[in-house]
């Protein structure tokens, strides 16, 4: 057992705390939920701002449209529900009422990825980035730790326009960074390295860093990028990575249409380099989130193996 294991955090806490702080300062902020007050950690918000907590009940389509209507009424609507239901059930509402109508709605996909583990593919949200990314005009944020989650929520409140923020419940460590600056559309370089680049999002970022550590011990220098904005994509950072060498992407998402797909679209059309795309193949068998990650190689070992593979080592 690693006695040095860092403290782990549930990013929903940072999300809820930040939203409460913002709401205290800005009366325009409202939260819209689908009977998800507890799972979105918004009990404190409800206690402090009961009139600004709009619970539509179990009705995701209505939840998203009501958020768009609240935005029409000059509110900043944080629409918060389990990512699987928010993005899939209400996809046409997201398309027509939020993105195409260009409304100031912040869609918060809670407990994204495979956090619900054994509950199965109906409750996994590992297709969300793919179907949301097709819609130009929607900013997509996937913060990697509590600090970045708080920064993403603050940016969402500050900047007008439709956004999706993927808020994980999977325990993650607080990343150490020299430069604590969050900018939408800007990849965060957490580690330099000239042999290859690992581009990761969300819960995979700390694993990518651990993989890079292990590779360094073998003499492989991997750069690690935290791609916390999936749309608009930081093409400059990808260009710099492609100029350096092969790229491995890693995401808690299916391997089609997500982070890897986004990077590959750019790489294939601008600067072809060898790539590996790590993620889930599709609907998953029964198992805990940790077991699923292990099974599909979304671990430091799996990422390191992919880097060696792409470098033919």
């Amino acid at each position, binding site marked *: 057992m690693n006695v040095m294991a860092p403290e782990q955090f549930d990013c929903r806490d940072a999300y809820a705390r930040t939203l409460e702080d913002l709401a205290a300062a800005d009366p325009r902020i409202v939260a819209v939920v689908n009977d998800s007050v507890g799972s979105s950690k918004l009990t404190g918000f409800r206690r402090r701002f009961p009139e600004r907590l709009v619970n539509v009940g179990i009705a995701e389509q*209505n939840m998203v449209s*009501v958020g768009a209507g609240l935005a029409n009424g000059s509110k900043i609507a944080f629409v918060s529900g389990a990512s699987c239901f928010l993005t899939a059930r209400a996809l046409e509402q997201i398309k027509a009422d939020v993105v195409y109508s260009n409304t100031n709605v912040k869609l918060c996909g809670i407990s994204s990825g495979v956090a619900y583990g054994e509950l199965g593919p109906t409750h996994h949200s590992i297709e969300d980035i793919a179907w949301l990314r097709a819609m130009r005009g929607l900013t997509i944020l996937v913060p990697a730790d509590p600090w970045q989650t708080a920064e993403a929520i603050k940016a969402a409140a500050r900047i007008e326009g439709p956004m999706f923020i993927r808020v994980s419940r999977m325990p993650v460590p607080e990343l150490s960074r020299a430069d604590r600056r969050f900018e939408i559309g800007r990849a965060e370089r957490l580690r330099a390295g000239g042999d290859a680049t690992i581009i990761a999002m969300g819960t995979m970022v700390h694993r990518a860093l651990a993989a890079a550590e292990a590779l360094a011990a073998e003499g492989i220098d991997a750069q690690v990028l935290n791609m916390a904005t999936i749309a608009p994509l930081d093409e400059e950072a990808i260009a710099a990575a492609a100029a350096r060498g092969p790229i491995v992407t890693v995401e808690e998402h299916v391997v089609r249409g997500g982070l890897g797909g986004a990077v590959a679209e750019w790489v294939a059309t601008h600067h072809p380099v060898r790539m590996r795309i790590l993620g889930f193949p599709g609907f998953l068998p029964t198992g805990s989130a940790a077991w699923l990650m292990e099974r599909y190689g979304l671990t430091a070992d799996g990422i390191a193996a992919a880097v060696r593979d792409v470098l033919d080592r």
Partner: protein
Amino acid sequence: MTTPGVRAAAGDVPAIRARAAWIRKRSLRMVHDARQGHPGGDLSAADILATIYFGVLRYDPRDPRNPARDRFVMSKGHATGSLYAVLAAAGFFPEADLETYMQPGSKLNGHPNREYLPGVETNTGPLGHGLPVGVGIAIAGQIDAADYRVFVLTGDGELQEGSMWEAAMLAGHRGLANLTVIVDRNRLQQGAGTEETNALEPLADKWRAFGWDVVEVDGHDVAALLEALDGARQARPRCVIARTVKGRGVSFMADDVKWHHGVPTTPQLEQALAELDAAEMAR
């Protein structure tokens, strides 16, 4: 917050009727020229739209996003012939723009877009969206104890969409007294009658069961519509079931499902316009 200054004199029935007649003729010409559109629904909604924009709604076309405005949401987003005609008549954009209806690059898309056109509150087209968005606006008004009212015009076939009833349930639950939905009850949807497709009746009972007040009126009777849309004593969300005739005002279009998205030939357009003129003269 400034209060919008423009409001048509409520109750001026002859003026509203004249606007409705103009909307009918203009929308038919638009559909004829574009060679596409939804004339049946344009004609069934014309009196409702004229009544709302020239008898009820408080707005300023020079300041279309004034936060204090009343909101009108066109849930039946396919009836853009009459929607665009009434918005132009109300001064949101030049009447000449109507000539560009569905032309390449036009702001007047087949379904309304709020980024292109002032006066459009939300981009509708897929059915079942307007009422839920309207409920969200009404909730914002409720939170702010604002004075504005929210009106949603929905088709009747559209009430087969589940999202409408999600929204209706929430509006009833929250007692949104600032919200009025008007059902354009022409009893025809794209392919057939509503009752043979997936029956809506007893429709008034359904809305009442969801916590709404229900008023049933002749949707072509401007005076009755004005009374139904008067919010003075409104304590709950109100549903105005407006009994209408699809294709109303044109003999060969009336109550015929094929004119849902049929396009008149030039002789048919001329006949339709002549009939509408004759009806106006006779009044």
